[in-house]
């Protein structure tokens, strides 16, 4: 099996500050790390590799040259191969252009059976790149995955909701976006770290990826950021418990009537 994991380098803060004038992220002075959800995606791949001997895990990132740091971290944990997609032509890409660029890079690799993404990046937060790449690659995509099992060319995936989960069967190849709940990411091993230190990573340029230059970078990005703001927190809701079911059901019906919902 060949598993591709897409990882993004992000600033180390869950509280990304936004410059209110330019509507862009303030990245200065913040340490860069692997996007936390991508760690879960990588861990899922590495666990599958342990369960299915012969599996190869390739980690792909698009970013500036210093993004090699997260690729080395991935090798330290057990990734077999890495791709750094890096070129000025990619600069300013939005989710559409990023998805396209990543899909061309993946297209240059041995055909994957599984392409994994984090649920979302903690800086951009759109959660669009995973599904976007899946569309470019023509693969089904399951978002919010917390567990996967693979047998006979088919994957069984648990997709988590706030109030439960779905168990879905999907044929391979497919794409998943992975949740924190999926696993606890491992730490790099000593031998992995040693291998990572010796690694020389030649970036894959736009030309090497074979991407259409007209679909890359700021100019090809349809997104225009008009305004960035924090949404109001979701209200807590009400919970009734401990009473007779009939009493609670009646209360629910009353409330729905009161709000003119039934």
């Amino acid at each position: 099996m060949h598993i591709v994991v897409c990882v993004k380098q992000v600033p180390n803060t869950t509280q990304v500050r936004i410059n209110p004038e330019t509507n862009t992220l303030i990245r200065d002075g913040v340490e860069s790390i692997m996007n936390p959800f991508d760690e879960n995606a990588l861990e899922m791949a590495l666990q599958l590799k342990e369960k299915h001997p012969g599996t190869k895990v390739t980690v792909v990132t698009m970013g500036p040259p210093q993004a090699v740091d997260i690729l080395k971290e991935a090798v330290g944990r057990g990734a077999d191969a890495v791709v750094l997609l890096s070129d000025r032509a990619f600069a300013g890409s939005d989710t559409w252009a990023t998805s396209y660029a990543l899909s061309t890079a993946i297209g240059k690799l041995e055909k994957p059976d599984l392409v994994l993404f984090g649920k979302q990046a903690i800086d951009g937060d759109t959660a669009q790149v995973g599904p976007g790449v899946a569309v470019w690659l023509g693969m089904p995509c399951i978002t919010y995955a917390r567990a996967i099992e693979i047998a006979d060319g088919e994957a069984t995936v648990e997709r988590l909701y706030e109030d439960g989960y779905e168990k879905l069967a999907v044929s391979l190849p497919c794409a998943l976006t992975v949740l924190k709940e999926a696993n606890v990411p491992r730490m790099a091993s000593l031998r992995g770290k040693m291998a990572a230190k010796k690694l020389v990573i030649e970036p894959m340029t736009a030309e090497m990826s074979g991407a259409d230059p007209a679909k890359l970078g700021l100019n090809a990005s349809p997104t225009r950021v008009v305004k960035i703001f924090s949404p109001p927190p979701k209200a807590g809701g009400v919970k009734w418990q401990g009473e007779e079911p009939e009493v609670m059901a009646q209360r629910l019906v009353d409330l729905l009537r009161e709000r003119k919902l039934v």
Partner: protein
Amino acid sequence: MAELNYGLSELALEIRSMVREFAEARVKPVRAELDEKGIFPTEILRELGKMDLMGLYIPVEYGGTFEGDSMPNLIAVEELSRVCIGVSVSFAANGLGADPILIGASDEQKKKYLPPLASGEKWAAYALTEPNAGSDAGAIRTTAVKKGDKYILNGTKQWITNGGEADIYTVFAVTDKNRGARGVSAFIVEKGTPGFRFGKKEDKMGIRASATRELIFEDCEVPAENLIGREGTGFIWAMKTFDVSRPGIAAQGVGLAQGALDEAVAYAKVREQFGRPIIANQGLSWLLADMATKVESARALTYAVVQSIDRGVKDYSKFSAMCKVYASDVAMQVTTDAVQVLGGYGFMREYPVEKMMRDAKILQIYEGTNQIQRDIIGLALNKEYAAAAKK
């Protein structure tokens, strides 16, 4: 933080940062629960194995990463101990169990038993102590009688760290009753060998995450090829093991004392009485100064002993005993003082120094009590000065 330059290798520094991060992330959040409920740190050891950290003391040709530098393993023990010595002893007891194999076993035995220990797939334990043979280890009564191509073991071992959890046990037994310590032999006994079972698991004052258990041998048949070295060499392997393993106990002391110092200073900076942080009182800051000085002295001595062993110093029993006795006494003093610095809060289970003080006590007892260490040092002095007088 300012630190001394001990000339550590790149590997040792790498191990220090890896294990420090690991201990903070994986051990610290669970240490109070492991302690309270006496839970063995299975997951933690498994993960250390996956990170290639269980074979730091095992030579490369047997699957480990050891190439002559003993500091990485020592520092791994120190860093785990900074957070929990219940966990660090469970880690280090593998080395204690493996040492007689490393020191005395044949190449064939090493090839069979060391690689799975290096990968962390299997764990080891060292079984010398018996109910009637503690400090006087030469008085053990477990017997091994040769019968064909087997030895038949009978007897009981007591307080064996990793007992029940380990897969590979180095067991010391008497093969010749008439020769005292020279009649002791060492055997490799695998878990699951018929006639080998586990008895009582101890409920302890400290290091409660570690497993301390009885081993019972009843007509236990061990293949003759599992004898380490020749018959009658067991006591030599047992004592040589202690010479190399005692600095590991010292490293536990250094790490534990450092952990307690960290807690004490951090607390003294934020706790306010009489309108100022308590660290602003000279009476308290001098206590902290003495604690810090002891921790660094213990570290310097311990590192110097291990680095000297690596550099080929031959006669080091005395020095191994010195670092063990000194660092464990320092750990007891510093953890006790740390409780004092935290006052009533230090006495409460909610704060980690209470556990640290309970844990420290064992370091003065196991792998030879501190009285026995002082005996070793005293005997060596007597001998060395007698030799010097003759010249």
